[in-house]
């Protein structure tokens, strides 16, 4: 089935030049870990979800997350921690994570919620600590982000539960009232006495009225709040219709009348509630992605107090103006200005730019970016809700719920629609009374039918749902939709402009073959590069997996690595002291050794394997394409012609 060999652990392709069954060292380690614990059945059991992230451990799975700021201890002395999981593929992943945790000492409870992709762990704080027991889960390749359960999705969950509860009550009542009604209807044809019929109506009323009163609340609440704001929405006709139908039926029952419509009222509510519940679930899933992004923001921050002591705090408790220390490899939790230190910052989360940006004293850094090469001290300029990351999340939310043109159209229509519907219903009622000889109950029934049937549910419900789900899905694929009208304007696009690395290219530099270097040069360079987290250094070490870290390597932020004792340097052109820049552009590293000519390692950003197909598909759709700025231009011969 598979042409290319795939990694035994993550299922990703194995680079062609690598022997063995794994694509990287991390995967190999993870496989042995899983096997060592006797959990290798996981591999037989799982099914890889192509939409989820590959289960590949980060190169720096030691990447230090401090979980302690999010641990809460209850009065029985049991500690608990809420985490979001990235990389969950299927049921087997739940099993693997729970087994990995439950096999360890001190864990009293570990449970993964697959719907919300969250993990709750409880443990005895005397016997273990989060850094220890979560290490295997991280090493297998899942990413864990602690979150504060108080802040995320509580409101939505409460609403969803209320809907489900209302749905259950409505379902129960609808079923029973329907049974009674069937006997009444049958009675119309088989001479049921009025006494029996009235009894049936009374029992129906007894069941249906409390149920309707309870189940109509979600609709009534929304209707009332809309009316208060001087608007109408589609919940108004629903609420009025159901209430009218019930009151009329009650009146009929009181007067021993022939027609009661409790069954219709409650069944209608039941169906509407099913729709509402499904709608809210779909929205909830889309919202999860936004919450994931928010959670990135919620990692603990090291604050330096005035007396010099350090304290870990959740970011929302850090005040603007505080001094913060960001260690190498840590995600920056706040927006701030650099007061001390010099480093490179990975801003790919915010800008999509894969090449790290150097920062110096006075430079701005933003929450959500990763500090790559040296510790930084910051003065906090914004936290929590005011950070750039929160701004982006907010923009996403606005875009999701935003008044896109079609959504706005639907809204406008339903705004005009609702008064029209009510007037039409009233006219129906009056018309039947005035121009025909119907009794008023029957006329009212027609009016209620008009109210409910003309409800613009499709417009007012379906369009926003599509918007929310589409932008949620796009976001999971790494596309941020920042404008509410983006989706509909896409339909008219005639030119696609690819910007930056990482769109048509992989966005990860790889070493270009055939520079003026030999195998031993590469190994030596890699032995220095191992000390750094810079992407170019990583690319270099990936090309020389056998290299060992050399002794005495220090990193000069923004410049490179050096072994001061031996005089060996690896880094930028400036760092190794080369003035001329005639030897081509693009990312490069230079290796300088005493008494030898410096050697250049050039890097390219490889085209994505499906780049040609994408461009060809665009051509078939009649969409022109263009490339705005590729940081690493691939050789022109590899570019497909625009219409190819």
């Amino acid at each position: 089935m598979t042409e290319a060999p795939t990694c035994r652990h993550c299922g990703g392709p194995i680079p062609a030049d690598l022997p063995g069954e794994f694509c990287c060292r991390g995967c190999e380690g993870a496989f042995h870990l899983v096997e060592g614990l006797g959990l290798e059945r996981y591999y037989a059991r799982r099914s890889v979800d192509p939409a989820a992230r590959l289960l590949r451990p980060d190169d720096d799975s030691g990447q230090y997350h401090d979980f302690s700021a999010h641990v809460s201890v209850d009065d029985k002395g049991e500690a608990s921690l809420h985490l979001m999981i990235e990389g969950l593929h299927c049921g087997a992943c739940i099993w693997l994570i729970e087994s990995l945790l439950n096999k360890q000492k001190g864990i009293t409870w570990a449970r993964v919620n697959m719907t919300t992709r969250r993990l709750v762990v409880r443990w005895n704080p005397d016997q273990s600590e989060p850094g220890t027991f979560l290490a295997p889960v991280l090493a297998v390749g899942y990413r864990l982000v602690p979150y504060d359960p108080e802040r995320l999705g509580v409101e939505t969950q409460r609403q969803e539960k209320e809907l489900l509860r209302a749905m259950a009550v409505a379902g129960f009542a609808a079923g029973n009232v329907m049974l009674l009604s069937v006997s009444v209807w049958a009675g119309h044809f088989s001479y049921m006495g009025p006494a029996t019929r009235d009894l049936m109506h009374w029992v129906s009323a007894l069941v249906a009225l409390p149920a309707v009163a309870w189940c109509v609340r979600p609709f009534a609440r929304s209707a009332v709040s809309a009316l208060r704001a001087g608007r109408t929405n589609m919940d108004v006709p629903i609420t009025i219709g159901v209430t009218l139908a019930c009151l009329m039926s009650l009146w009929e029952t009181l007067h021993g009348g022939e027609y009661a419509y409790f069954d219709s009222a409650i069944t209608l509510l039941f169906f509407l509630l099913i729709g509402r519940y499904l709608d809210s679930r779909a929205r909830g899933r889309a919202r999860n992605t936004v919450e994931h992004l928010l959670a990135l923001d919620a990692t603990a921050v090291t604050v330096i107090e005035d007396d010099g002591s350090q304290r870990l705090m959740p970011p929302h408790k850090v005040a603007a103006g505080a001094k913060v220390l960001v260690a190498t490899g840590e995600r920056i939790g706040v927006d701030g200005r650099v007061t001390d230190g010099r480093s490179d910052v990975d801003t790919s989360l915010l800008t999509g730019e894969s090449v790290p940006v150097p920062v110096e004293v006075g430079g701005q850094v933003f929450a959500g970016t990763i500090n790559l090469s040296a510790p930084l001290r910051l003065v906090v300029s914004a936290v929590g809700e005011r950070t750039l990351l929160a701004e982006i999340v907010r923009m996403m939310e606005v875009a999701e719920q935003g008044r896109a043109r079609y959504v706005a159209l639907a809204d406008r229509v339903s705004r005009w629609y609702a008064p029209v519907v009510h007037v039409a219903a009233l006219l129906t009622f009056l018309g039947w009374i005035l121009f025909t000889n119907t009794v008023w109950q029957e006329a009212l029934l027609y009016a209620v039918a008009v109210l409910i049937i003309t409800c613009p549910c499709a417009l007012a419900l379906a369009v926003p749902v599509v918007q929310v789900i589409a932008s949620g899905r796009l976001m999971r694929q790494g596309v941020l939709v920042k404008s509410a009208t983006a989706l509909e304007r896409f339909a008219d696009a005639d030119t696609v402009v690819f910007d930056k690395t990482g769109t048509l290219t992989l966005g990860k530099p790889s070493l270009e073959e055939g520079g003026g270097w030999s195998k031993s040069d590469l190994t030596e360079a890699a032995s220095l590069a191992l000390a750094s987290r810079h992407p170019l250094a990583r690319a270099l070490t990936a090309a020389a997996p056998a290299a060992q870290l050399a002794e005495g390597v220090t990193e000069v932020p923004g410049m490179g690595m050096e072994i001061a004792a031996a005089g060996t340097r690896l880094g930028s052109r400036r760092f190794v002291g080369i003035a001329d820049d005639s030897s081509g552009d693009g990312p490069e590293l230079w290796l300088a050794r005493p008494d030898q000519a410096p050697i250049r390692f050039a890097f390219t950003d490889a085209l994505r394997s499906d780049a040609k197909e994408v461009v060809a598909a665009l051509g078939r759709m009649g969409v022109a394409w263009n490339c705005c700025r590729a940081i690493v231009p691939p050789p022109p011969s590899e570019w497909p012609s625009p219409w190819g």
Partner: protein
Amino acid sequence: MLIPVALGLGFLGLLGFLWALKSGQFDDLDGAAHRILFDDDEQPKHGA
């Protein structure tokens, strides 16, 4: 009369559902679907 009996049974079912909802059995519908496939690991394995 059968009506109270029918209503009572239905009501029991409703109470059962509300209890299940309250005790968290509907919190993770996707996970529950997969969980049933896990073998119990605490059982010693016999034979192949």
